[in-house]
Structures are given as C-alpha cells and as structure tokens.
C-alpha cells in the first residue's frame, strides 16, 4: 500500500504540533508496511528521510495553466487571491497584514510553459497563493506518481488533496489537526478558511479527527456526515533521555506552556494563580510562550498584584522546555478549545503532574490527569493546591502518568489508520 501524503511542515522545521504529528504518523505507517510519499511546500534537506520519501514541491515543474483549466473542469474552484490570511496569529497582527497588503499577487503563466514555484513553506502573507499553487503541484504529482490513496493534513493542503483526488481518481483522506473554531473562536471565524476546510472535508472519502472533541466539531459545525468521520488520537514519541528533576527555588512551580493566545486560556491561568497565591505564598507561577495576548496578560498579572510570583519566560524551545519541566511541580493547560494538545504528554513524560481542561482532545485518552472545565478557576486552583499539598497525589501522578504516556504509540494510531485505508480501498 502506498500513500501520497500532503503536509505543510515536517521536523525539524516546525511551527506547531502539525509537523511532529505528521512525522510520528508516517513513521508508524512504515512500521505497518505502508509506503509514504510525503509532499511538502519546501524542504530544508535535513528532514529524516530514512523511512519515507519526501518530495519538495518547490522543485516540481508543472504546467500551471494546463492544470488550472483541467481542474476547473473537475469543479475544483480557485478563488481570486486578493484576500490574505495567516493562521496562528492573533487578530491584531492579522488586520495589520491585511492593511499592508496589495492585491497584485495574482499570477498566471503562458500555456504549455512548465515552471517551478518557490514556496516559502511558512505561514506567510502569501499563504493563499501558496495553497493554490500547491494544488497545481499536487495535480502534477497525481499524474506522475503511483500510489493507492491520498492523505492531506489540515486545510492548507486540502486543495492539493482534492486536486490529486480529481486527477487520479484515488480516495482522499483529510486529517483534521485543528479547525478554524479552535484557532479563532466561535465568533471570529475566517470565512475563507472555514470554506476551504469544509470543502476538503466534504470532498474527502474519509475524515480523520485527532479527538472526539474535534470529531464533534466536524460533524456539528461543518455538517460532515458522521459515518465518514473517524477519531484518530495522536500519540507521542519520546527519546530515551531522562529529564533531570531540579529544585532551584524554595517555592513550588506551577507552569503554563503554550502559545499565549485567547484559545489557550492564559487569562484563566492568571485568575487561578491569584486564588492560590492568596492562600499560599510558597508557589511561583510560570508562563512560557509567546503570542498576541502576552502584553495583555503581563498587564493583567501586574494589575492583580501577583507580579512578584508570576513569571514570563517568552518563547521556549528544546532544552529550555526540558529544564522548565524538570523544575515544575504542576503543569496546567487551561485551553478553551484544544483539538488535541501534545504538551501535557511531554510534561507527564517528565514526571510532572498535569491539570488539563475538559475542552481538550488529550483529556479523552488520559486517566492520570486532573480534568477541569477551563472556566472553573476554583476547581483549577483546588487541583493545584491538592497536588502541591497532598504528596500522595503528586507521587501517584508522577509515577503512573509517566507510564501512561509511554503507552501511547504512533504504531497503534497508524494501525487504525491503515484499517481506514483498507476500508476505502475495499481490501
């Protein structure tokens, strides 16, 4: 079995959890004898190609005009690109970019002329241009490569997936790692992104969701028939590296790690900190990460009079994350809407007890975690207090949590995915 897979990023050059998930999934698939051709807009040459073949879309020559017309016949619509958007940034930044942009990016090429398009592969201002050119590359690849099934990760690649599906006639699986509702919240939905997500989901022969939480959104908000939506929980891969526990301060440390955006619920973390600090001065709260809400949160913490016990580290990577986990006594993820949420698993792997919001996909698969509603700051404060003051609880979480996350294997997720493939191929 051979899969033509479209992604947007791949380790080590990643902006979020998408690339990591793609890497784990492809690795798991190869363990089950599924061959993977992984296409991405731009490669850097240092990706792990030991198991899968990676195609750099920037190096594929394609006849843009031919494929555009051809796809048009297959009812694949191309929108006029004069609207710009970038995911993973806040609204403030977003409008800033919109205002700066000019609408002269529409490109066309002579008929019969083969060209390459130099993708940036980033979440840049030219995103929609890239998305559409990526679909043209996909059409070219669907024509030249041999494969049995197509798999597209997140909305940026759905158009490519549909193009490949139309040209090859092979079944399409789209994989939903996040929806516009997770990124922008209920009332700030970007219509273009929503439309492209929905188009991909409806065109797909099967839709994979990273959690039941996301599956529910797909069915309810996108109107996708539920019989073709499957939950495929993410897994996580850990090195053998043991994270050293250190205790540099006399106070206990409670950590938030993630993008500081509205959807991650940073405000609830501050609110909780206020409650705990009122009764226990022997705690420090750390917010690691950056985002459009950071300014606001810093001001809020200062206003609340807890700035001496509430710390900001900015964006952390690699070793710094491990050091922070090594120091932490509790990890809190108060997300308002989290399709999956891999970082609690990393915390647990480091032996840190975790408190996660019920509005997260990862809460569906964890037993050794305290689950609270993101808005229930009393419950969150109580849970933090419990872990900090009742050692039996933290000891149990530390030991059992570690064990639990190490049982989450990509190979198991991939096995389930292979079953879905088989079903689509009538094998």
């Amino acid at each position, binding site marked *: 079995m051979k899969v033509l897979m479209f992604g947007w990023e791949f380790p080590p050059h990643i902006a979020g959890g998408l690339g990591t998930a793609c890497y784990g999934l492809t690795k798991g698939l190869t363990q089950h004898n599924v061959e993977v051709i992984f296409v991405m807009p731009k490669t850097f040459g240092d990706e792990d190609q030991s198991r899968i073949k990676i195609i750099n879309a920037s190096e594929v020559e394609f006849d843009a005009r031919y494929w555009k017309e051809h796809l048009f016949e297959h009812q694949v619509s191309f929108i006029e690109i004069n609207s710009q958007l970038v995911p993973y940034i806040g609204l403030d930044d977003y409008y800033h970019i919109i205002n700066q942009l000019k609408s002269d990016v529409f490109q066309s090429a002579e008929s019969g002329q083969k060209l390459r398009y130099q993708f940036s592969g980033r979440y840049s201002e030219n995103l929609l241009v890239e998305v559409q050119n990526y679909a043209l590359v996909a059409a070219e690849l669907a024509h030249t490569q041999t494969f049995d099934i197509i798999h597209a990760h997140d909305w940026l690649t759905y158009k490519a997936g549909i193009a490949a599906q139309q040209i090859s006639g092979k079944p399409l699986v789209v994989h939903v790692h996040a929806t516009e509702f997770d990124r922008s919240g209920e009332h700030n939905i970007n219509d273009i992104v929503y439309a492209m997500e929905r188009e991909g989901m409806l065109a797909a022969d099967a839709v994979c969701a990273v959690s039941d939480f996301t599956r529910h959104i797909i069915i309810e908000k996108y109107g996708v028939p539920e019989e073709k939506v499957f939950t495929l929980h993410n897994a996580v891969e850990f090195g053998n590296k043991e994270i050293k526990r250190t205790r540099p301060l006399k106070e206990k440390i409670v950590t938030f790690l993630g993008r500081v955006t509205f959807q991650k619920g940073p405000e609830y973390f501050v609110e909780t900190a206020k*409650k705990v600090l*009122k*009764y226990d001065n022997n705690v420090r709260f750390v917010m690691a990460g950056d985002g459009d809400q950071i300014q606001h949160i810093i001001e809020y913490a200062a206003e609340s009079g807890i700035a001496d016990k509430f710390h900001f580290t900015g964006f952390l990577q690699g070793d710094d994350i491990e050091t922070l986990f090594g120091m932490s006594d509790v990890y809190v993820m108060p997300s308002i809407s989290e399709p999956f949420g891999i970082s609690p698993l990393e915390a647990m792997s480091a032996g840190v007890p975790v408190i996660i919001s019920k509005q997260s996909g990862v809460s569906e698969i964890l*037993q050794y975690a*305290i*689950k609270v509603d993101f808005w229930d700051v*009393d*419950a969150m*404060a*109580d*849970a933090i*207090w*419990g872990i900090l*003051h*009742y*050692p*039996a*609880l933290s*000891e*149990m979480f530390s030991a059992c949590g570690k064990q639990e996350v190490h049982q989450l294997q990509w190979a198991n997720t991939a096995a389930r995915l292979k079953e879905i493939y088989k079903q689509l191929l009538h094998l």
Partner: protein
Amino acid sequence: MKNICFHFQINQPYRLRTYRFFDINKNHDYFDDFQNSYLTNRLAERCYLPANEMLGKLIKACPEAAFSFSIAGSSLKMFETYCPQVIDSFKELFKTGRVEFTGSTLTHSLASLHNKSAFLEQVRLQETLLKQFFDVKPSSFCNTEIIYSDEMGEWLHEAGYTVVLTEGAKHILGWKNPGYLYCNPFCTELKLLLRNYQLSDDITLRFEDKSWDQYPLTAKKYVDFLNGIDHTAPYLNLYMDYETIGEIHPKESGIFDFFDTLIHLLTASKNYRFILPCEVEKSQEKISTMHAPWPISCSGEEKDTAEWLGNEMQQEAFEQLYKLEPLYLNSTNAEAKKNWLRLQAADHFHFMSTKWLPQSAVKRNFDVYPSPYKAFINFMNVLNDVKIELEK
C-alpha cells in the same frame, strides 16, 4: 433441614459538598445537605419503605420468616433528619419479633483496618444508637463491608459479641464449605456465619443481567439453585445491601415479586428454616475454626480491601485520618468529633478508587465525584479543616 439466614445491610454516607482549600479554617459546613436529603428520600421511597412493608406482610403471612439487618448509625441519623417515617417503619417491623438488628460501625467505618480503639469506639457508639432507637443490645455483629480478620474477631469478642457475619472467601476457606458454622481459632466462642457469595450475588449482581445464561431469575429457579447445593451443609447465609430491593434493581424489574414469592416458597418448604444470627449463639454443634490472618471483605473477586486502600491516595487519606484519633479523644468540640467519625465512611475511600472501569457495579451508584482525584482532594481539604477544629 437447612438454616437460611437473610441479612440486609444499609449504609448511605454523609456525602461531602465541594469543599475548596480556601474554605479551610473558614467554613465548617462540609456536607451536601441537598444531595443527602434527596438520596435518603429517594431510597426511602424506592426501597426502604416499600421493602419494609413487604417484609412486614411476609412475616404476617409466614410467621416463621425472619430477617436480620445492620443499619449504619449515620443512616439512622439521616433517616431521623430527612425521612423519619423510615425509622417508624423499622420500629414497626421490629415489633414482629422476627427481625434482628446486628451491631455494626457507626459510620460504615474502616476503622477495623486501622486499630482496635478507633474500631471499638465506632462499635460502642453504634450500640448506644441502637439502644436509643430500638432499645436493643446486639450480640451478633456485621462489620463494614463484612470485613473480618482473626484479630478483629478477638476485639469483637472482647466487646461482648458472640456471632460475626463475614464473607465465605474462597482463598481463606480453601476446601471448606461456607455452609457450616465456624469459629475464631484464637477465641472459639466467637462463631462465624459465612456468606454464600455466589448465591447472594445471583440476586444483587445478576438479577437484571441479560447476558447471564440464567436470566431471567425467577423465585422458583432460585429455589432450585438452593436445592442444588450440598445438602449436608446446615447453613445458607445470604447477605446483601438492602438497596438491592428497589434501588439496585428497581420495582419494574420484578424484584419485589421475586422476594415475595421466594419467601413464600422457602417457608412452605420443609427443607428450610429461617434463622437470625443471634440464634446461632446457643448452637451446640461441633464446629471447625476458620483462620483469617489478614482482612477479608465482600469486595470484588479478590475479597480483599484494595477497593478502599488500594492506591497511594487512599492510603494517605486513611493514615492522615487516623492520625487525628488522639485529637478526637482530647477534643471537646462535639461537632468536630462527629465530623471526624463521619469522614471514616468507607464510601469516601471507595470514591478515590482507581480500579478503572470498576466491576463493582453495585457500589458505584451515587458516586458524586467526576474523578477519584477530585474525591481525594475534596476529602483532604475537609480533613484538614476537621483537624484544625479538633486542635482548637
């Protein structure tokens, strides 16, 4: 002739409300009055009142029928507060002379697993309460979740008990048959009546189990089961939660009709004689010893105490709880003392159990916590406040 002993256990704990750490040392109001009142009334309506009525009628129709009860003091107190007609109904039933109230712990406590003095305090307080409500002094005893060990047997004998009801646990009995009377090996005057858990569970666990090959269970079929066991064994002891009648199996399942018919069939048969635990006291037959070096209970397949003390949280909470015993003994704060006793209820520990997907279907009903962790944190918060109150 087989002696058949029906024993019903009643316990509902004082359920805790959500008690946050910022309530500690501020607010000593730990119990969820609404929930406690609601559940007591619900159980009274569905189970205690109609079941008492049925048993009263049965005793009238078949005077040889007899039933034994152990009612935790905390339940009696809740009846008194929320639903006093249940007390009257039991008093009425007791007047028939065919009903026994055995001794038990006051608050469905696990104290017997911790130490003698805390346990006997519970036993003594329960005796006071039984005297007050029914004017009886029990001579037989049914511990929380029928927990028993050799050592506990000795303590109970010291406290004046002569008969103890416990589990016919296979791993303790080995080849021995639970249908005989046994005694404590170190204190042979203490007699043991062992539960036949297969036949008891046929009713409590399997009565409504559609996947059971014997479903549906009729009274006639059940009597056939009883007739099918070893004829020579003189005792058949069926112990169950009273809530089996009407709550665990609702009225619509036919459980009332089942019991009604069953008792009629058994009293009509020449093969069975109803007995009460206290009647065994005077029995002169030769009996063998049963050695229980470690505690047994009615829990799960293992018949051990892991359901309440199986994980670190439960053990920690348990230790912290009994650390307060000296404070309890020295305190003059009656309210705090009462609360310390109430916190001993086995249910609080059960709620902290991490036996995932619990098989113990019977006991999981009315679980008020979304997770065992919340149960633990909540309990510990309350315990900390009780501690402060006892220290004052």
